[in-house]
């Protein structure tokens, strides 16, 4: 898929909460092997944080990098599965916080872990069609894993905001994108349920890998490239292993995946995952570098994007805190504190 107008990313911003819980600590509580864990530790939102506050800080950082008058935004779209309100948009709060209201489209998007890139696809279309000069897409989550479930080890919190605008102002120009979806029930949360359920190993081959690889391949054939032609490749990061395995299947060199692979340090930030990886790559990529980003959302589908870095990245990169700074700002908490902060204790 390509757009009518030449567009790109004109600003990006990340946020990761300060608290961390070690996977070994979760394993200890539930009587599992503390060595064989999916990630080292995961981020935990503080008691006064939620998807909305995380989205706000990411959005503010994106505005700083874009040096954009927020009133020029045509849309603020928040992709998340952890909306603070079941009914009432998170996006209106974010738009108000950054000063983008009232002549703006604001809405929350949902597609499990790819809600963020879904919103990004929307923003690319919105700006690429000429409906608006600028649009902001945010992927954010404060994911909840059921205590003792495999997902508890990785369900983390974080988010990233991307501002789409004219290619002439872009720090990364947009080449093309692809969305690939099927009806695949690998992971879900029913209405009124607090925690999601998943189909265990079914989440692998028919779900994550099938959609990731096909979205990537289809995009590559559209732009006439091989996956390994890109300088950086980001995959959705449910754990530390899956993105590396996907790279292997697509013939992508592992060192191209490492810069955008942050799940080993902060876990799976769900809708924030692929876009946070993208932000981490933007933090280090040089002008001219090409970037392939492929998300995955259960249910199921993948969005794949092709970007090329411009000279502008060097000018704006340091106008807001980078992903590394947020990852480096860490305070370890024990399981009891984690249980309190995440309201896992019935009162």
């Amino acid at each position, binding site marked *: 898929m390509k757009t009518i107008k030449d567009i790109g990313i004109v600003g990006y911003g990340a946020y990761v909460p*300060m608290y961390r819980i070690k996977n070994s600590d979760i394993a200890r509580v539930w009587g599992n092997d503390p060595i064989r864990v999916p990630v080292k530790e995961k981020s935990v939102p*503080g*008691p*006064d*944080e*939620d998807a*909305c*506050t995380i989205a*706000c*800080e990411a959005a503010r950082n994106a505005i700083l990098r874009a040096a954009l008058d927020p009133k020029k935004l045509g849309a603020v779209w928040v992709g998340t599965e952890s909306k*603070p*309100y079941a009914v009432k948009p998170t996006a209106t*709060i974010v738009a*108000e*916080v950054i*000063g983008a209201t009232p002549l703006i489209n604001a809405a929350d998007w949902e597609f499990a872990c790819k809600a963020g890139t879904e919103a990004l696809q929307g923003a690319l279309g919105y700006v690429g069609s000429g409906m608006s000069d600028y649009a902001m897409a945010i992927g954010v989550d404060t994911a909840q894993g059921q205590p003792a479930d495999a997902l508890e080890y990785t369900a983390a919190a974080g988010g990233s905001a991307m501002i789409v605008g004219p290619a002439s102002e872009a720090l990364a120009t947009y080449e093309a994108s692809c969305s690939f979806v099927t009806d695949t029930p690998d992971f879900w949360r029913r209405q009124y349920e607090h925690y999601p359920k998943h189909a265990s190993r079914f989440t692998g081959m028919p779900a994550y890998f099938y959609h990731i690889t096909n979205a990537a391949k289809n995009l590559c054939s559209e732009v006439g490239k091989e996956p390994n032609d890109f300088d950086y490749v980001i995959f959705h990061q449910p754990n530390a292993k899956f993105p590396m395995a996907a790279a292997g299947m697509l013939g992508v060199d592992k060192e191209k995946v490492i810069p955008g692979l942050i799940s080993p340090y902060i876990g799976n930030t769900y809708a924030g995952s692929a876009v946070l990886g993208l932000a981490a790559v933007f933090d280090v990529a040089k002008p001219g570098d090409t970037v392939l980003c492929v998300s995955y959302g259960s249910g199921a589908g993948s969005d794949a994007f092709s970007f090329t870095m411009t000279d502008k990245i060097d000018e704006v990169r*340091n106008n807001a*805190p*980078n992903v*590394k*700074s*947020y990852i*480096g*700002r860490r*305070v370890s908490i024990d399981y009891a504190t984690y249980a309190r902060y995440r309201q896992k204790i019935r009162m």
Partner: protein
Amino acid sequence: MSVPRHWRESVKRYRLIGSKCKACGKVHYPERTVCPLCKSRELEPFQFKGNGKIYSYTIIWAPPEGYEYCKPYAAALVELEEGEIVTTQLTDCDLEKIEIGMPVEIVLRKLFAYGESGIIVYGYKFRPVLPIL
């Protein structure tokens, strides 16, 4: 639960918008409609940057109803770059390491919620300036 009361203040609380006296130039936070310095009633909105340093602080161990969720927490008088002092909570900080003069910056956080079913009230808090790596 009062919805209009919070809604009315929300934008000012989200963005730290105060007022500036067109007559004498004094900036105020919270917003005023009469300048306490010169009594002028010609005021305009003023956007504070949200950077400051701690003028004084406390650690709340006995919170008022509705704030138990983040106990213990720090509260502070923050002297803003523009000169005004603002009352706020501190967040993401080591309670042992707070000191008068410490630089802080604005963030948006949940202030409190009306239980499980009522509205969530968001607003500014301040945190130690994020170290850039």
